[in-house]
């Protein structure tokens, strides 16, 4: 198995630069997910690794080999496309065999590989069918099968689940994860769906506007977002963000947001930066209904309750900015009606510089 190493990767179309110099090292057998809103350069980056787009600047290595000028077919990578790109005129077996036939693999070897792969993917009974006669999930599996039979060094996935309905997507997500565990092939996976990224990735790369915003494990990104963008992108519902000014008090620093005061015990590093403009970030999941020792409380007015079953979303606002809290219901929502304050542990309150958007005062 090989890793993939990107150094200063740039992509330009004419005078327009869409990827601004990316550094990323993917370890052998690692499952890395590139995630970001559309147009952030994640697909372009994947296609540069595949060799489908020329690399304008920088170096791309697969294993130890510099592949900038290596044709896609010689890179030892396989790709699963968003629309699967299954050939409608070939049946499942022929679709999977296509690459092997082009490479003049002996016939009996092809047959063996196809049979094995079909078994892994549960496609054995469908080998004679045409793609048009398969369900969405089956097509998705054939697309993966076509990549697997080649025994590549690296798998590339370009939004492979975005054409499936929600239920099937959850199911296929688990299947991809299992497959990766079983085959252990280095994988690069592109998606705009942060849930997919969180569930699949060993490490997530969050991209925006052609830059990498943060690289880290799912939990690192969730707990310690490096900036407001990542904070807003990872997590559902997204982290609540509102502007505030820091003030000093006897008990420690306080964030003053338009009349709401939030105590920031423990963030002693902030002492003395009174008057600094910040953005306060609080995850909906980190809000508690009852006060505990040392928690800061936020007085609220309830706008709306959305019931999800075991959980409920409380919609409220801090100043003019909407604020959402996610709380457990224990099968009961009556007690939520009269709530007039929410509580949060100071350590859970994230602060970002208002100018740069970067996280402040975190022991990273």
């Amino acid at each position, binding site marked *: 198995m090989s890793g993939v190493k990107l150094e200063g990767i740039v992509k*330009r179309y004419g*005078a*327009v*630069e*869409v990827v*601004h110099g990316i550094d990323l090292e993917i370890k052998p057998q690692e499952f890395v997910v590139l995630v970001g809103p559309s*147009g952030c350069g994640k697909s372009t980056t994947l296609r540069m690794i595949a060799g489908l787009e*020329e690399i304008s600047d920088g170096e791309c290595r697969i294993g130890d080999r510099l592949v900038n*000028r290596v*044709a896609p077919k010689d890179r030892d990578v396989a790709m699963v496309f968003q629309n699967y790109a299954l050939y409608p005129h070939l049946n499942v077996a022929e679709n999977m065999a296509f690459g092997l036939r082009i490479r003049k693999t002996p016939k009996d070897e092809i047959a063996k590989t196809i049979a094995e792969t079909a078994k892994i993917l549960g496609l054995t009974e469908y080998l004679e069918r045409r793609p048009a006669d398969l369900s969405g999930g089956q097509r998705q599996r054939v697309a993966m099968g076509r990549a697997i039979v080649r025994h590549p060094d690296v798998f590339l996935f370009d939004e492979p689940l975005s054409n499936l309905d929600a239920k099937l997507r959850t199911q296929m997500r688990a299947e991809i994860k299992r497959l990766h565990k079983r085959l252990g092939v280095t994988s690069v996976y592109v998606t705009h769906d942060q849930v997919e990224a969180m569930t699949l990735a060993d490490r997530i790369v969050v991209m*925006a*506007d*052609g*830059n990498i*915003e943060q690289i880290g494990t799912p939990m690192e990104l969730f707990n310690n977002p490096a*900036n*407001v*963008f990542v904070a*807003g992108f990872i997590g559902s519902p997204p982290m609540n*963000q*509102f*502007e505030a000014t820091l003030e000093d008090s006897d008990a420690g620093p306080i964030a003053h*947001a*338009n009349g709401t005061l939030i105590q920031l015990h423990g963030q002693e590093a902030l002492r003395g930066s009174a008057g600094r403009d910040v*953005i306060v970030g609080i995850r909906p999941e980190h809000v508690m209904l009852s006060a505990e020792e040392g928690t800061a409380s936020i007085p609220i007015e309830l706008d709306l309750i959305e019931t999800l079953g075991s959980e409920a979303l409380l919609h409220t606002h*801090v*100043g*003019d*900015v909407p604020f959402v809290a996610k709380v457990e219901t224990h099968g009961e929502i009556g007690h939520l009606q009269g709530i007039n304050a929410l509580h949060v542990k100071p350590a859970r309150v994230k602060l970002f510089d208002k100018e740069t*958007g970067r996280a402040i005062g975190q022991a990273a």
Partner: protein
Amino acid sequence: MAMVDKKSSAGTETVVPKQTLAKRLDRIQMHIRREWQIYLMLVPTILWFIVFLYKPMYGLQIAFKDYSIFRGIAGSPWVGFEHFGTLFTNDQFIRAVKNTITISALNLIFAFPAPIILALMFNEVLNASYKRTAQTIVYLPHFISSVIIAGIVITAFSPTAGIVNTVMGWLGIDPIYFLTQPEWFRPIFVGTGIWQEAGFGSIVFLAAIAGVNPSLYESAVVDGANRWQMMWKITIPSILPTILIMLIIRIGNIMEVSFELVILLYQPATYETADVVNTWVYRQGLQSGQYDLAAAAGLFNAVVAFVLVMTANTLSRRFSRTSLW
């Protein structure tokens, strides 16, 4: 309090300095190494266009030369616009230009609406198999060669044996030798065109009708409209863009009368109304060997046609953009 700006970094577009020559050459080399096969595939087609369509354009210079076969295209002496002077004082050529425009105008008036009316009528036929059969039959003449079409016309309009004169005989009308009568050439020619192409031409309009949103008709039914009203208030306005685009294309092709059929149907007695520019070019050039004069006439025709087509293209582009609904 203002909304929190979630964008963290600067904009996307950055102007990149021009690449160095060495880097450019390097990229071209890499491109050719990777993509040489598509150039190999393109070469035969491009060569064909050069040899069979662009080389004749080079040969068009004989329109400005005193061309002789022995001296060749390049060797013949220039005479400037002499041939054009000859053309515009030549009664036969001027007659041919007039005939071309007249026949096109008649086609525009009589042949152009035919496929539209046919398509509108097909749209009202309820019985699917009746409709299918009728369509199959009316599309057929499009695939029949002009020689056969002319053969049928000649036979049908023959003075003694032809069905037309037979029927006229029943009605007590004296036989007419239609194909030798100048006043009959244009009606026969335009009528033949309608018979041959109206059915096939209706396909485009039927497709446009098929694209009309069915809920328009449903709401019209609810409003109590009858089929006749729906045709005028829904179908025709909906396909108007298609009609206009086809009309513009037709106007762009005014200089193109299907001269193959003219050659097959006309005779010296009907030149007066039948002779068009291309048939005149054919007789002057290929039959009488006046290549340079004929080429000049052909060039005149091609330039007028080019200007018309380009104007039509521009109009249709402008129109189809604004007409997107």
